[in-house]
């Protein structure tokens, strides 16, 4: 209780219905990723004092704060098999990335609703920090599904916060391996929403955007902060870039609430990207977001998931580390035996037994110093060209 008085109460927003969002078959975005993460938390006893908070699906009014009504209708029809493929393709649906699945509107509206609820808990003071691990669908655009994302949960939640709390300043920090393009474009001219995205450079990775020069438009110049990282960036370099930039950006901005997107696809084992982080990075970032939230906005912090496609070895451990930071619990040393015995046979890869990667297994590559040097120069450029614009 004493610790809570200092650090505040934590809430986890979840519901089995949120696990309906995902794509079947061999698709990399498999809903099992959320199940594996939460069962690891549960079997480690990390959910004992934290019953799941349930949430309502986002309404059409919620969704149309950032999406076009036409698009919402298309998604609704698609989930009931009422659309032809030709119509869907114009909206980024029916592709290998974003295949149509039954009731996809309901599933995705649930995810958005979960993140809206997490924000509400934090703003109403029911919780100091809240996590909704199904959120983080940062690529969804106004009228287009993109990169496994149908509706943009952070975009909708931020718009709702702005409506309900006029004048509020919201900081969005995205450490997914991919650029947080959808959220960035939705608030590109808005000086009340700071978006910070650290990601693998668009030269090498989808969606191709997120250069330093993308720093906002009109009144929003300076409020889109991008740090494109070199492929094969490892923990040490990523952490020092994060430390050189994120605290300073957030302090300059002085947010009322922080929303973090905690995709974990920058891990060395991730099949979709070329970054080389380990669990060290995924333990560091949430702890720092937590501290910055206390330093700057009375602890108000909402954390979501995001990408992460090594669903067996990386996602469960990275998001358990996230939850321990949100809920002020110690990260256990070992993966639970119950989890291992339940999932060991089903996993196509050998499951790790320790919660933290052994650095010995991830030696820096031959170009590590060169990569770190380039990243440092990128951060210097951001510090010079973008941060001074934040008022």
């Amino acid at each position, binding site marked *: 209780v004493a610790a809570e008085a200092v650090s505040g109460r934590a809430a986890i927003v979840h519901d089995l219905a949120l696990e309906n969002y995902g794509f079947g078959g061999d698709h990399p975005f498999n809903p099992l990723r959320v199940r594996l993460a939460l069962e690891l938390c549960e079997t480690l006893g990390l959910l004992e004092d934290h019953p799941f908070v349930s949430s309502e699906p986002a309404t059409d009014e919620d969704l149309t704060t950032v999406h076009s009504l036409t698009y919402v209708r298309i998604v609704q029809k698609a989930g009931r098999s009422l659309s032809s493929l030709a119509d869907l393709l114009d909206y980024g649906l029916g592709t290998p990335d974003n295949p149509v699945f039954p009731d996809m509107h309901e599933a995705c509206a649930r995810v958005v609703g979960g993140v809206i609820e997490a924000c509400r808990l934090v703003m109403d003071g029911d919780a100091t920090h809240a996590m909704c691990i199904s959120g983080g669908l940062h690529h969804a655009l106004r009228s287009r599904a993109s990169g496994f994302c149908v509706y943009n949960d952070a975009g909708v939640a931020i718009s709702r916060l702005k409506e309900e709390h006029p004048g509020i300043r919201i900081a969005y920090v995205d450490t997914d391996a991919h650029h947080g393009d959808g959220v960035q474009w939705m608030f590109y001219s808005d000086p009340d929403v700071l978006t910070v995205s650290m990601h693998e450079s668009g030269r090498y990775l989808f969606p*191709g955007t997120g250069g330093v020069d993308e720093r906002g438009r009109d009144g929003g110049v300076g409020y889109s902060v991008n740090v494109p990282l070199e492929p094969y960036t490892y923990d040490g370099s990523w952490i020092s870039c994060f430390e050189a930039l994120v605290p300073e950006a957030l302090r300059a901005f002085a947010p009322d609430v922080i929303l973090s997107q905690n995709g974990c696809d920058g891990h060395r084992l991730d099949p979709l990207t070329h970054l080389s982080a380990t669990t060290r990075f995924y333990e560091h970032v949430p702890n720092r977001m937590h501290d910055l939230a206390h330093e700057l906005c009375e602890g108000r912090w909402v954390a979501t998931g995001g990408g992460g496609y090594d669903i067996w070895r990386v996602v469960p451990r990275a998001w358990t580390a996230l939850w321990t930071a949100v809920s002020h619990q110690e990260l256990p040393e070992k993966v639970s035996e119950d989890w291992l015995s339940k999932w060991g046979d089903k996993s196509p890869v050998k499951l790790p037994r320790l919660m933290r990667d052994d650095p010995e297994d991830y030696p820096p590559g031959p170009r590590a110093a060169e990569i770190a040097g380039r990243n440092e120069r990128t951060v210097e450029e951001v510090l010079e060209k973008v941060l001074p614009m934040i008022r």
Partner: protein
Amino acid sequence: MLLVKDSMTREIVTLSPDETAGTALALCRERRIRHLPVLKEGRLVGIVSDRDLRSSTPALGDQGRAAALQEILVEDVMARDVLTTLPDDPIEHAANVMREERIGCLPVVESGELVGIVTSSDVMAALVYLIGAHEPGSRMEIALPDRPGSLAGAAGVFGMCGINIVSAAMGPTREPSEEGGIKERVVVFRVDTINTSEVIGYLEEAGYSVLWPPKP
């Protein structure tokens, strides 16, 4: 597509030869432009750039500056041999003229009438749009044998995987990567997918070498 008329600016700020250098510089500043065509009775007779104006007037802080800005006329400063382009010229033609002549813009003239202006920034914008760099996508470079059907073959692999091609740009021939091999062309694709691993596998299986994204 990719014609001068697709990229040119149609709202042109012009001067007449008897206006002052002061007026011309003020226009450059207010409209944030660097090149002003000069018209006399509707016909293009010259062009001035902000650089021409600055280098032919006293520097900022010079006591004689204010008077000189009123005295020096556009016709004293303007270039009279103006290179122009046609609205239906391909943009690469305009780009090449600007590059070879080391100039930053070309007035666009049709039937003796000034209809637009195309600048180096317009050419850059055309490049960005050509490559599709404003749309989400993954950038890939593939080396193709310089033989009929190679491009279709590689593009077909994306089609087979259901991946839409946002843009494709093919370069000149280059020496074969293997001794005694066939000359190659490199094509840059921008494709609408977050997940390139499967299609890279199929491309390599089909014998194409994927140069980008680079391997460690």
